[in-house]
């Protein structure tokens, strides 16, 4: 359904040539700012023999070196900051999967620009200043909580800053406050819906009509399940803390890809093996340059997310280009016995056994002394699936194994575990534990 036009979204509809002019000016500006202020980056550019003056067109971005996640770790904590600490007003840090976390710093203007993008994302989902939005992203070092919070306030809507956890109280507040929209991870929302059911609350009877789900890749099956459980309209929101946080891209009412806020985050698609830039329409690794961020700009940051830029204009009228929904993060992808596996494939398998809701699960990869790799998938048993009959439980376990083998083509050891046995996270859920090279 078409959403009312909100003035905050003006930049979504710039004529392409104007947008490109802005992009070029901003790109030239940010590259010079980086070159002048970040020794690490100046050295990288010098090694490639490229100077800020060489950026004459948008295409010249391809002359610039990439920034990798490893570079952020190697320069921990403040090595990539481009302004003195006196101008930094906020620090965030990601939960590093291994070793040091990734730290990001923002100037006052950076926070404003980020909040503005987040506000436009909410507006694309039809949120207005009259709405009450519950923000169940975790507040803290994780960018989700404060990022969404500032966006909701910037839009002028009312924020209910519940953060994650205390699910029963979240449901009570949703009902008592008449909450119209929610921001959280898709898996947490499914958990909310299930808990509401247990409490005798039907989400469909509540005024909540819209949800912004991100911070973890989610599948079409999960979207259908959420919509069936709650009756709300779901919007996939994309972001990553290296860019700023949530609000890098958003679905519009057409739900056919995510518009990128291109005047702030300049997108490219590259061949992940060769690093060659690919034309719009071709699938590859998503790369971003933050062209309007000064505290810690990122030049050609490799996201490890695989997608394509959709070349056609969108029916909603926005001129911002779109990317396909990211159903898999290449970071999460792993190779076992020569097969590429995405956790989303495992989610599909789990949902095909029981479409009611995605169970909590964890994938662990181990290596035998003889070099053969094993994949173990622990699945939390749900009360509805649990049976006192051992044979039925064995059959359920077998069904999970069978579906996983059918979808992946390789076998996994499936282990049913107690509800709550697997650790929860309020940010992006960590699903894969690769212990193959652990000592």
């Amino acid at each position, binding site marked *: 359904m078409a959403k009312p036009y909100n003035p905050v979204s003006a930049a979504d509809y710039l004529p392409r040539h104007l947008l490109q002019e802005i992009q070029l000016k901003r790109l030239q500006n940010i590259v010079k700012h980086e070159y002048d202020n970040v020794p690490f980056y100046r050295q990288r550019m010098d090694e490639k023999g490229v100077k800020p003056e060489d950026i004459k067109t948008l295409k010249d971005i391809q002359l610039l070196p990439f920034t990798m996640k490893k570079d952020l770790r190697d320069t921990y904590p403040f090595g990539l900051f481009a302004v003195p600490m006196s101008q930094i007003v906020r620090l965030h840090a990601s939960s590093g999967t291994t070793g040091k976390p990734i730290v990001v710093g923002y100037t006052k203007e950076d926070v404003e620009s980020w909040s503005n993008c987040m506000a436009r994302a909410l507006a694309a989902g039809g949120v207005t200043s009259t709405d009450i939005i519950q923000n169940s992203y975790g507040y803290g070092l994780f960018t989700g909580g404060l990022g969404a919070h500032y966006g909701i306030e910037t839009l002028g809507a009312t924020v209910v800053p519940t953060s994650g956890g205390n699910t029963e109280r979240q449901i009570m507040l949703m009902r008592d406050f008449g909450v119209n929209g929610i921001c959280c991870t898709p898996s947490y929302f499914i958990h909310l819906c299930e808990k509401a059911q247990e409490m005798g609350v039907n989400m469909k009877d509540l005024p909540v009509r819209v949800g912004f789900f991100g911070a973890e890749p989610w599948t079409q099956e999960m979207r259908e399940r959420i919509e069936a459980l709650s009756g709300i309209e779901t919007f996939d929101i994309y972001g990553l803390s290296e860019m700023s946080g949530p609000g890098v891209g958003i679905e519009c009412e057409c739900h056919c890809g995510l518009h990128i806020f291109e005047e702030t985050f300049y997108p490219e698609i590259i061949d992940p093996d060769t690093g060659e830039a690919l034309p719009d329409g071709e699938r590859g690794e998503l790369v971003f340059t933050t062209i309007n961020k000064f505290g810690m700009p990122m030049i050609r940051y490799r996201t490890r997310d695989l997608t394509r830029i959709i070349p056609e204009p969108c029916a909603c009228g926005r001129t911002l280009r779109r990317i396909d929904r990211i159903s898999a993060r290449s970071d999460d992808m792993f190779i076992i016995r020569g097969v590429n596996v995405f956790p989303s494939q495992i989610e599909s398998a789990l949902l095909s056994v029981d479409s009611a809701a995605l169970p909590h699960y964890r994938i662990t990869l181990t290596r035998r002394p003889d070099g053969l790799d094993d994949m173990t998938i622990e699945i939390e*048993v*749900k*009360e509805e*699936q*649990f*049976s*006192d*009959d*051992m*044979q039925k*439980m*064995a059959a359920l*376990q077998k069904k999970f194994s069978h579906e996983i083998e059918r979808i992946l083509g390789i076998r996994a050891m499936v*282990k*049913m*575990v*107690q*509800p*709550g*046995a697997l650790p929860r996270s309020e940010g992006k859920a960590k699903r894969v534990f690769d212990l193959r090279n652990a000592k």
Partner: protein
Amino acid sequence: MYLKQLSVFVDNKPGALYAPCSTLADAGVNLSTIFLADTKDFGIMRIITKDAEKALAALRENNFAVKTTNVLAIEIEDVPGALSKVLKAMESKGLNVLYMYAAMGTSGKPVMIFRFDDADQALEKLSETDCKIISSEQFFAR
């Protein structure tokens, strides 16, 4: 005539039984019988208590997966061959025993707890035999 049995899903790892047991103890539940069935991956802890409602609520509150099932308690004569006589009677009635385990009866005689795939049918058929079915009241009258 049935006993209400609670089944709790537990991990098969050291200490996994501690959590449900301490939950029940904290709730002041008095356990009559505990029986654990396990595979290499997981276990099912089966509990019989006269505080079944209280136990169920406490376990659910603490996020355990719990199911309640009707089981039958049958007193076995303390003589050789008594159990096989009972099993024979069940077989002759075409009843399918999913599992059984021992509990202590009122008169000091052993009591076996039986779970059938169809408890109603089992009760009906067994009342035609000389199997001594112990009611819930008798079972807990200790």
